């Protein structure tokens, strides 16, 4: 950051940074053209000259927390008392905070059945839990019969529909009509859209009955009640005098509406838009709506220069832009894009070659954090195998995945299995394998074989009473397991036996952890990882129980059982890590393409994997929703055709390619094997693009 700020700014950057001369600026330009650097300079000027006033404050607004990192980093490094007067927010965090703070204003509108009771905020996952209460009976009655989706995907698409109506700004009661009007295929799908409408409308009623606030309702309350309220407006005006809004193109229209009406009341504003982005369109990002904010500015600036990419990569960028068919010289193309001479047959061989290439680069002086390995999707085997190979070569890696599966963590599995054993009220007893694994993990000296023998020794395994008392074990088995181990086992069994069924699960986990599992001889003793993971499991449970616990009919045993059931069914699948944990590690980055792009960072070497995959450009199959038909830019009544789909794929690919190349300061290595990761011979549009580029370059060379 100091480096960035010590570089002499360009004229455009100086203009953007001058908040006195140019109080309201709209700045547009492609990635890596110095826009955020200009914003940092502007913030620095504001900090040093305008926040001296006791009440003057600045708001930094970004679509996603990872995009706030340059600002956070600068504030940390400048370490100024006035840094406290800068608030870095995403719109969703701002909306939630404001609803919480101004809840009495909302209460007085009597939207909810119990308006003066507290709001119960839902996360994506707890919203899915409540959606399940609505949809499960519908599924039993035969609704959504033609749809083959996992339950959590079904729930998340239904919630996505509600979210789209809120962030775009149309009534949720119009969802089925909008989706149906664009549909061109089998008429049976229209019945599915009617089911969608039934489900989302019932879900909304459930929320209003119980003070439940999913994301869509939060946005609607903010927009329709708070934003219209004079007390709230007055508060906002006293809170913020300066605004820097970065990556506006990645936000949905309701944020642009908010910012647009906020600007006239601010002393200064800088809105930044990344040209050619809008990577989160499937989540409702709307670059056209963002571009309209230019009309609110007194000064419009456009940056063209790419400060990151090499001339060779820049030439390929120019060639890739729509409508550009110029042929590039072969040496230039092959300087930008490396095609390894040997094409491995199978994917594991490709990973072997990639890890060797990375080792060579590092051996020749490239810092590991200047290397990224990118694929449209990151499978567990890919991450595991590549990390293992690089780790073997002594190379650190960092994996960026937005979430980790909660139930696949062995520490969490152990705790949850022991919880299920000690809570027969839940009526969800673990099976033999789960119990065996949990026992071996809780008592490390009790290996899998002995644990299984112990569980099956006195009688066939009974899930309802899985842990036999030591006294009931046969003598032959007792002879095979040391008395120490048997003692530990019996202590564990008795501890689990005497659990109060009405004890809240978080208290239970805390006690299990401290009274037993961290004691000498047990599996978590002295393990920092176990402590951290257990703390996160408790946090996850507390988020889950927060909306449920107000319900007088939901006692501790019920909530614990529902948490366990939701985890087992995959409804609560994610363990979200705080941002600092995603970014603090350094090493070779292994990330999905979109996640990397949304980090807004650059790298010298980019290894692209799974080149033949359609994941580089195709949208996810979403039979219950449609991000483009439900967008503000869609003309109602128009049909979504296969041509639209193809055009979208091409647009997505171009946007992704340009985004990646503009963030590459060295070379891109195109990594392909004859058979892809899935074992298929994929031939997607990215491969065609690369082949065309090289063919035309070869022809150019032959002609020249």
């Amino acid at each position: 950051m100091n480096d960035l700020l010590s570089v002499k700014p360009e004229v455009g950057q100086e203009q953007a940074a001058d908040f006195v001369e140019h109080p309201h600026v709209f700045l547009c330009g492609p990635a890596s053209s110095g826009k955020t650097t200009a914003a940092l300079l502007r913030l620095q000027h504001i900090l040093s000259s305008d926040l001296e006033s006791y009440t003057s404050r600045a708001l930094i607004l970004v679509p996603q927390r990872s995009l706030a990192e340059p600002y956070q980093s600068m504030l940390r490094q400048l370490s100024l008392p006035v840094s406290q007067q800068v608030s870095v927010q995403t719109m969703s965090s701002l909306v939630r905070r404001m609803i919480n703070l101004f809840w009495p204003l909302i209460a007085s509108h009597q939207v909810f059945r119990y308006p003066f009771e507290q709001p119960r905020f839902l996360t994506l996952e707890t919203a899915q839990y409540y959606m399940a209460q609505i949809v499960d009976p519908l599924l039993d009655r035969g609704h959504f019969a033609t749809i083959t989706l996992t339950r959590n995907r079904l729930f998340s698409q239904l919630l996505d529909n509600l979210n789209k109506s809120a962030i775009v700004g149309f009534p949720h009661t119009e969802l089925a009509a909008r989706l149906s009007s664009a549909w061109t295929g089998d008429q049976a799908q229209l019945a599915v859209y009617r089911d969608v409408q039934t489900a989302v409308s019932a879900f909304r009623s459930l929320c209003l009955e119980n003070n439940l606030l999913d994301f869509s309702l939060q946005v609607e309350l903010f927009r329709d009640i708070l934003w219209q309220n004079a007390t709230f407006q007055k508060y906002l005006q006293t809170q913020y005098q300066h605004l820097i809004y970065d990556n506006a193109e990645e936000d949905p229209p309701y944020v642009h509406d908010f910012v647009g009406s906020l600007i006239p009341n601010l002393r200064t504003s800088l809105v930044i838009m990344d040209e050619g982005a809008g990577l989160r369109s499937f989540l409702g990002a709307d670059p056209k709506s963002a571009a309209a904010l230019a009309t609110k500015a007194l000064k419009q600036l456009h940056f063209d220069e790419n400060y990151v990419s090499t001339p060779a990569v820049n030439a390929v960028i120019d060639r890739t832009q729509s409508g550009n068919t110029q042929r590039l010289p072969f040496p230039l193309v092959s300087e930008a894009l490396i095609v390894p001479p040997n094409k491995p047959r199978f994917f594991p061989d490709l990973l072997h070659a990639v890890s060797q290439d990375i080792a060579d680069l590092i051996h020749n002086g490239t810092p590991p954090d200047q290397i990224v390995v990118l694929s449209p999707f990151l499978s567990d085997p890919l991450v595991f195998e590549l990390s293992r190979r690089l780790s073997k070569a002594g190379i650190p890696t960092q994996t960026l995945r937005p979430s980790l599966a909660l139930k696949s963590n062995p520490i969490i599995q152990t705790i949850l299995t022991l919880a299920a054993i000690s809570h027969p009220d839940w009526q969800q007893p673990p099976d033999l394998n789960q119990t065996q694994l949990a026992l071996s993990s809780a008592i490390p000296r009790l290996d899998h074989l002995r644990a299984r023998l112990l569980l099956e020794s006195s009688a066939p395994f009974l899930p309802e009473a899985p842990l036999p008392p030591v006294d009931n074990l046969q003598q032959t088995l007792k002879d095979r397991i040391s008395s120490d181990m048997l003692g530990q086992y019996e202590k564990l069994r008795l501890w689990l036996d005497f659990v109060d069924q009405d004890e809240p699960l978080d208290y239970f986990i805390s006690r299990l952890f401290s009274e037993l599992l961290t004691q000498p001889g047990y599996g978590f003793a002295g393990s920092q990882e176990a402590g951290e993971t257990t703390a996160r499991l408790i946090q996850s449970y507390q988020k889950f129980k927060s909306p449920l616990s107000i319900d007088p009919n939901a006692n501790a045993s019920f909530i614990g059982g529902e948490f366990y059931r939701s985890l087992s069914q995959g409804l609560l699948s994610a363990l979200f890590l705080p941002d600092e944990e995603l970014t603090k590690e350094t090493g070779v980055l292994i990330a999905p393409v979109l996640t990397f792009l949304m980090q807004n960072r650059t790298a010298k070497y980019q290894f692209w994997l799974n080149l033949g995959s359609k994941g580089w450009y195709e949208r996810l199959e979403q039979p219950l929703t449609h991000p483009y038909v439900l967008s503000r830019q869609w003309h109602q009544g128009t049909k979504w055709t296969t041509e639209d789909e193809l055009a979208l794929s091409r647009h997505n690919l171009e946007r992704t390619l340009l985004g990646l190349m503009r963030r590459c300061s060295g070379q891109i290595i195109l990594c392909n094997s004859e058979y892809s990761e899935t074992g298929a011979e994929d031939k997607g549009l990215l491969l065609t693009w690369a082949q065309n580029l090289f063919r035309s370059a070869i022809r150019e060379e032959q002609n020249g």
Partner: protein
Amino acid sequence: MTELIPSGFVFHQSNLQTFLICRYRFFLRYVQKMPWPAAVAATSSQFEQDQAAGSYFHSLIHQHFLGIDRDTLCSCAQHFPDIRVRAWFDNFMNTPYAKIRPNQYPEHNQQIRLDGNLLLAKFDLIIFEGDTIQIFDWKTSRKLPKRQFLQSRIQTMVYPLVAARAQAKPPAAVNMLYWEAGFPGQTIQFNFTQDDLQTAQLTLASHMRTIRSLEPEQFEQTTDLQRCALCEYQSFCNRNSPSWNEDSYYEWKSEVFGLID
């Protein structure tokens, strides 16, 4: 080499109090930022209820100062599951502190640089009247703390110092009032002279210097096991402490929820 305490580290009453209670707890919580399951004693419904009620009460007062009408707030207080909140709010509204005046800032954060370190205070309410600063801190203790106890708290040094030093012109007087919602008539007020502020400044600067000077192994565990009673790292340190008492509860609550309550 990476600094143990980064230059942008923000000191506040909560982490400084932690340091005075147990250096190792400070190290684990604020340097290593290590999450750990809460201590068994700290996981009880009373703690949860106290935290929720205290936090909601603070919100109601904040909302009052933001201009939301009293009847609406009373309805909200009445519907809060913990009946103490309604009584607390009524108590508050019947005090002169509920009066809305100019130059008052509820839930206001202020930061100063002291001896090269950032020091933050989060005021429940701060009022500027002429060249006098009045600081208010709302408390929701089950037992009324003694004046001496509050006087010894780091908070009673940090708040007036930050409030005074953040002004371009030194104020003539800085007063801090602790108001206990359950004991509305028994306020405890501290009036700070310039000498008091200077003493606070030297003490706090000395603490911060000490923290910055320590190597990881010098962040030692407290020898007073009573202080471990509610500490989340109890199992990490393999400490079986005696059960908690009112003092350790108050200390823990103001340390953990110091920035809320």
